[in-house]
């Protein structure tokens, strides 16, 4: 088996490694388009192309871990079979050199060779083998505008013998003339049910027991990114180490996913003058817990206490985005706050989110959010600015 090593890199690494030792994200990468969870519309359209021997240029877009790369690879494999895959499919991704001239050269060279189409593969299966080649431009949103513009001509010049599939996260980064040449397929974040059934499928195959609560925790922490939930599941299962007695708890998953524990967020909210007894974290708890919490009488927040708290959280190393999103929920979903205050706070959160995306300093922005929110929350009368 190991002889094939590098040669088969294009077919995915599955030949190279003992499947026992393979990360589950690769091990359970869909092999056919019917294995792809959730993206029903896309799969339905693509299934037709398997019989019709024609294919439009395509543009796949959507957030990470929703099956874009998997779908095109599976489709290509179903069209050509393992033998012809290498001669018929060219995959170029952002890690390859993608200056215009290089792309043009590669595509030219690739499109020139007309391979003999053996329709029946070595494994005895018949593949459609339509008379064109597929060029996959994965991560196309990181191509420069110039390279994209040049691609238009290339697409037209080779239209007879090639089909392009552009794959990206942000469809807005693809220039319009290019996007309009393709049929667009949107990959949605995976819905709860699809994630659940895929995870349960994997758990069954791997002989691990996963409680429904744990599955819920996986769904909640991964936000529709199936790749992430699979990685979390695998890591958690390593912790329990195949030991049947120790089961994976929702808390394990949250820990792995970097979720900040409720107590810490509640404490943060309290520092800002928010009463966490009315917040979202209390929804599932009973009154006895609350009785204990009354003891925390509210000190009016001041600069020093807020800054001290933020410093503490930063030392804990929690990710800024995670802190913000959880604090956001603690404030916006709190039943004891005036909606005017909430709308002020929402603006503050939005601004900070943008700043973090632009790479601004986490500590400064979390402090800013905390200070400004506490100002609104504790203002005697909400100001009207």
């Amino acid at each position, binding site marked *: 088996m190991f002889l094939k090593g590098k040669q088969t890199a294009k077919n995915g690494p599955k030949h190279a490694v003992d499947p026992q030792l393979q990360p589950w994200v690769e091990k359970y990468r869909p092999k056919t388009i019917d294995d792809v969870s959730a993206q029903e519309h896309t799969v339905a359209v693509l299934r037709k192309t398997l019989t019709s021997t024609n294919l439009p240029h395509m543009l796949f877009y959507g957030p*990470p*871990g929703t099956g874009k790369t998997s779908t095109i690879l599976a489709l290509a494999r179903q069209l050509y079979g393992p033998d012809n895959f290498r001669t018929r499919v060219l995959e170029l991704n952002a890690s390859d050199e993608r200056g215009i001239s290089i792309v043009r050269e590669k595509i030219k060279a690739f499109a020139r060779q007309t391979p003999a189409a053996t329709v029946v593969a070595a494994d005895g299966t018949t593949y459609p083998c339509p008379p064109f080649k597929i060029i996959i431009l994965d*991560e196309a949103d*990181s191509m420069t505008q110039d390279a994209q513009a040049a691609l238009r001509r290339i697409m037209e010049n080779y239209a007879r013998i090639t089909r392009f599939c552009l794959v990206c996260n942000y469809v807005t980064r693809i220039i319009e003339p290019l996007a309009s040449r393709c049929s667009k397929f949107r990959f949605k974040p995976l819905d709860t049910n699809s994630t659940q059934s895929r995870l349960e499928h994997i758990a069954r195959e791997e002989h691990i027991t996963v409680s429904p609560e744990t599955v819920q925790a996986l769904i909640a922490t991964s936000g529709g990114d199936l790749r992430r939930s699979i990685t979390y599941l*695998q890591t958690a299962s*390593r912790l329990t180490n195949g030991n049947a007695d120790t089961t994976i708890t929702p808390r394990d998953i949250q820990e792995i996913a970097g979720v900040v524990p409720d107590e810490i967020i509640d404490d943060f909210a309290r520092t800002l003058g928010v009463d966490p007894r009315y917040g979202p974290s209390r929804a599932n708890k009973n009154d006895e817990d609350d009785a204990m919490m009354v003891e925390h009488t509210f000190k009016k927040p001041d600069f020093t206490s807020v800054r001290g708290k933020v410093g503490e959280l930063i030392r*804990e190393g929690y990710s800024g985005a995670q802190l913000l999103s959880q604090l956001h929920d603690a404030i916006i979903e709190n039943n004891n706050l005036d909606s005017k205050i909430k709308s002020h706070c929402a603006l503050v959160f939005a601004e900070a989110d943008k700043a973090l995306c632009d790479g601004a300093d986490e500590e400064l922005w979390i402090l800013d959010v905390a200070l400004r929110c506490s100002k609104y929350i504790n203002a005697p009368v909400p100001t009207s*600015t």
Partner: protein
Amino acid sequence: MSLWVDKYRPRALDDLHYHTDLSARLKSLAASGDFPHMLFYGPSGAGKKTRISATLRAIFGNGVEKIKIDQRVFVTPTKRKLDVNVVQSNFHIELTPSDVGNYDRVVIQEILKEIAGTQQIDLNAKQRFKVVIINEADSLSRDAQAALRRTMEKYMSNMRLVLCANSTSKLIAPIKSRCLLVRVAAPSPDEMHAVLAHVAKKEKFDLPQSAAEQIVADANGNMRKAILVLEALKMQSPDLTGDLKIAKPDWETYCHKVADMIVAEQTPTQVLAVRAKFYELLSHCIPPTVIIKTVAERVVERVDGALKADVMHWAAVYEMRMRLGSKKIFHLEAWVVKVMTLHKHFMYDIDLSEFA
């Protein structure tokens, strides 16, 4: 003679002092063959690098400690030559691509292709993959990050990435989706006390409680700093009693001076004087973010309570602009002018709402 920080750096996962449950987790991951790509994040000095090396040792054994440092030359598409230092063993390679600024993509691409193309040669190796450690991953350019994406999936059979970063917000979502995120929190004061006591015991001296407390308070969760300070203090006053002066780095003293200038006088002349100081700091390669944060922290200690929040707010705003813009000094200076204006108007008791 090596420094205590290096001399007493724990080498095995079991020897790590704090976050024992995290160590246990890493240990079980290292024992299983299906180790994922990982992203270690947390404040500096919390022990990320130590944990990474201990994890590598758990995966590959002592062999990873036999390292050599190479200087490698990469050529950019524009034919520029780049020198990069790489640290490597038979099992892993470590690089800091942010050293080469915007050319980081070229370096990453070449190294990864090279690693991915070679199989593990050591037949006794416990794993078939090699590990690539990327330091300061949060300063990788977007381009370089994009280049990692598909590579991380395609070459997973021969290669695992370990990214090391202070924060995760500068990494693009697809990268985070492909990694297991490992948070390394700063040690708590108690945990730091324990480590300092351990070092003192090994060096065979008594560490007075008062000294330990002072060191821990000063280090603010940075374990490396705490041990360095301990060693420096021990040299200054061998019995570690009495009034210990923890020396501040020059740049910090300098930043404090700037803050005091801002609070003392708010005039155009003063702005010029402050600018000269900023130039000085920048020319000594103090990162502009560190400058604005250090100055702001000091300013808020000096101004009225009503102004503190605003000072920090504008520090946050101008720090962000600094990231987006290219002339750092403009934004530092703009912030100073803003703070001076706030301060002055406050002193003259003018309604602030128009300016804030």
